[in-house]
């Protein structure tokens, strides 16, 4: 048998031991921008600190220092007295590109609503990079966002994290090395969509049964690959040691890798923690059910999205290290949103270790995440919680970055991080606040009232010709 084994190994070992090459890899590379020194700014760092009258220096795409340090001879100085600086805003829940403007039927690419479990689809394959919504969000200070599939399905597919830079392709926007997300959905939407077709699931219990069945398949898939990889490893070791210890079974197994399955690739990735779970869920009781299910299958729920009842279980969310990505004031559009209160975000934030996030789920809201956060901050303060701006800014920066698994790279103003920075005309928590400048990886990507730094999509060119402006 050894001869057979030796005949196979040179072919097989390189194939199985090499990681799968990244599919649809990011092609984003930041052009080089000149170093910038912001002088005398009020800085909300994104991780809870406020620095008054402070300088900030960015160069080579990174935050070089906050406070004092050396600057290069070619640095541009920006007087930021009376101006505020925050990290670039991050939206963890957007459908830009997959439900783009104009919202014509042929652009409706966000829900593969043909089966309740479609973990195999990737939102990025639906993203239309020419959605004018991207540039509007940029003017609102958004430097990164997660584009998610919709909530028609129990497992809606993979989400993708993008840098908010104009590009011909989504690959040109893809946040380098950001983990994928997995969009899941609780409650009314899946059971309505499929129950309406007299198909499972038509009830909440049907939802849970279908999640669990899918996880069981994913566990089996993972076990098959684990066994296969172990066999390959054993066989390789045996070959190296020139021992006769490699069993016939291992050798045979080595010759028959499990068949790859896109759906189970995604689900197994979520079980392993390589793919972060983003769960659309409104009701408190359902979120607790989901946390039990995660324990049953040994995976982590990263973030509950929408969670209009998250305030009812703020402590449980914090204990489980689960973020709540929430609206400031949406409610009542369906019965699972009936108990929405404006203090939701502040109460999730109150719990020790709580991870509150303001998300948009809206091409309007993503342009004004600062305003949405301001409303939530106000309601918290009026309820007697003490929430200063440096705390509230975390909801749209660091906490959002953490939810997307990119908090080591961005989401706060700290030395060595990506220079994703917004310069505001004033305290950003105001209806009158506007970004004056938006930097992504140290490159000035937007400037107020500067047509050469106000990107337009191809779609917008040449429209309404003849209109007197």
């Amino acid at each position, binding site marked *: 048998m050894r001869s057979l084994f030796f005949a196979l190994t040179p072919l097989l070992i390189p194939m199985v031991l090499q990681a799968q090459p990244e599919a649809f890899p990011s092609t984003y590379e930041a052009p080089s921008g000149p170093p910038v020194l912001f002088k005398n700014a009020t800085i909300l760092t994104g991780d809870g600190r406020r620095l008054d009258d402070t300088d900030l220096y960015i160069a080579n795409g990174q935050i070089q220092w906050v406070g004092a340090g050396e600057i290069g001879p070619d640095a541009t100085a920006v007087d930021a007295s009376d101006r505020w600086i925050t990290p670039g805003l991050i939206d963890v829940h957007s459908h830009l590109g997959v439900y783009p403007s104009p919202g014509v039927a042929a652009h409706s690419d966000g829900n593969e609503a043909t089966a309740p479990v479609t973990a195999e689809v990737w939102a990025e394959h639906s993203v239309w990079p020419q959605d004018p919504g991207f540039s509007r969000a940029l003017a609102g200070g958004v430097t990164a966002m997660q584009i998610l599939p919709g909530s028609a399905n129990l497992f809606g597919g993979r989400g993708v994290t993008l840098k908010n830079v104009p590009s011909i392709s989504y690959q040109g926007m893809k946040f380098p090395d950001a983990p994928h997300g997995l969009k899941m959905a609780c409650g009314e939407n899946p059971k309505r969509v499929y129950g309406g077709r007299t198909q499972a699931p038509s009830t909440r219990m049907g939802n849970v049964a279908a999640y669990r069945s899918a996880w069981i398949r994913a566990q089996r898939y993972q076990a098959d690959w684990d066994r296969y990889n172990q066999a390959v490893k054993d066989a390789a070791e045996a070959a190296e040691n020139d021992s006769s210890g490699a069993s016939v079974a291992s050798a045979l197994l080595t010759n028959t890798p499990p068949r790859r399955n896109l759906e189970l690739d995604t689900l197994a990735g979520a079980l392993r923690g390589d793919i972060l779970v983003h769960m659309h869920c409104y009701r408190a009781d359902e979120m607790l059910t989901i946390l039990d299910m995660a324990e049953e299958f040994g995976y982590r729920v990263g973030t509950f999205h929408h969670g209009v009842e998250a305030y009812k279980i703020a402590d449980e969310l914090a204990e489980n290290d689960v973020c709540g990505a929430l609206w400031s004031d949406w409610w*009542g559009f369906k019965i699972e949103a009936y108990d929405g209160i404006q203090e939701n975000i502040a109460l999730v934030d109150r719990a020790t270790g709580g991870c509150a996030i303001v998300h948009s789920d809206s091409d309007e809201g993503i342009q004004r995440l600062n305003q949405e956060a301001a409303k939530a901050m106000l309601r918290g303060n009026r309820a007697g919680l003490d929430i200063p701006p440096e705390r509230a800014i975390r909801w749209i920066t660091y906490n959002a970055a953490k939810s997307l698994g990119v908090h080591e790279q961005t989401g706060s103003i700290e030395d060595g991080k990506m220079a994703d920075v917004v310069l505001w005309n004033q305290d950003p928590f105001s209806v009158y606040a506007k970004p004056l400048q938006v930097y992504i990886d140290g490159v000035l990507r937007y400037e107020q009232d500067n047509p050469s730094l106000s990107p337009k999509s191809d779609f917008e060119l040449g429209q309404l010709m003849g*209109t007197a402006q």
Partner: protein
Amino acid sequence: MNTTRFVIALLGHLLLASPSYTASLLITNGTVFIGDDAPSSQLDILIEDGLVEAVGSDLSAADADQVIDAAGRPVTPALFAGITAAGLSEIGMVYEAVDSRLNELYTGLMHPEFDVRKAYNPLSSVVPVTRIEGYGYTLLAAAFGDRTISGQGSLVRFDSGFDSFEGKTTIFVNVDGYSGNKIGGSRAAHWMLLETAFSSLAAKQGNGFWLTHNEHPLINQDGRATLKDARENGIFVFRANRASDILQVLAFSRKHQLNAIISGGQEAWIVREALAESGTPVVINALDNLPGSFDGLGARLDNAALLHRAGVSLLFTSGETHNARKLRQVAGNAVANGLPYEAAIAAMTSRPAEVFGGKPRMIAPGLRADVVIWSDDPLNITSAADQVIIDGKLDPMTSRQTELLKRYLPTEPGLGRAYINP
């Protein structure tokens, strides 16, 4: 608080949380926006028997049963909540609790006689949720579905009354690309049908349906009577965003002598001179800045500012019912994009009443005392309504949502939240 007033307050509390009643109330030291487009001034407001009795400096507290020191906080008339289904839609997707539209009727295409006011429920949780955020009235709309004429509504006051309707009968007509596509397959076909329907008003006709060319019932006798009456005494709100559609509305309204208002108006800025000249008011969502459809390629954030500067009468709506309270933010963004502050205040307070034929809604002697004291700038998201006053009565400032907050704010739930009954 004297004993009598305490008893009255207690009774008020027992009677289904009705507003606490004060015979006369003095608000002192307000930064008062009276509701027109004048700047604010420091004023006192004396309210008696539900009406504003006097507005001035240094009014005497001796005349009042109760005094509220506004301490410089802004005071405005209670705001307009936009065009909504408040009191018609309890929960958006619970269709048996939504009464704002007419669906799949077996008869007729146009039903202007469909009147949403018959289904208005002032006890809906949406009403106090909206009112405690500083809103005193709304325009009840027949929902813009796929209908050509979706029905009629009018202003309604958020005073808990079952029939607190005001102003003129308002007919809602859709003339955008979406409805055109649904009705007759194109805008042109839809205008043809509207023309047929409105021309029929002048024609003599016996009993039965007025028929289109292919014998499909278009509008019945009641509908025709409604249109006739509305042409004399009512208002037609046309939903249109594209510039060319707006001009078409103006021409149509001129021809049939309709009192027209544009709702949507994303490209109204392109035809602002024509709008100003015809005196046609426009209701916009000032946050619209995306080409959401081919009707709104020209949507832009300074639409409000451009319309105002051209002399167009401007109102706001958010398109929301449950979150109609967002309208202050909409107006604030219009100001952030060039609309003069006082113009936004007028658009949020008195102008909607003027446009839709309601009673004047300003802070002036003899007028109804629907007033709000704000914690800060009422057009900014940094403020909230500290005290809403409707008909001169202090609103209890409670809603289903404040009750939920009271239940979940304590960190020690004891036997459980179900036992915390505020």
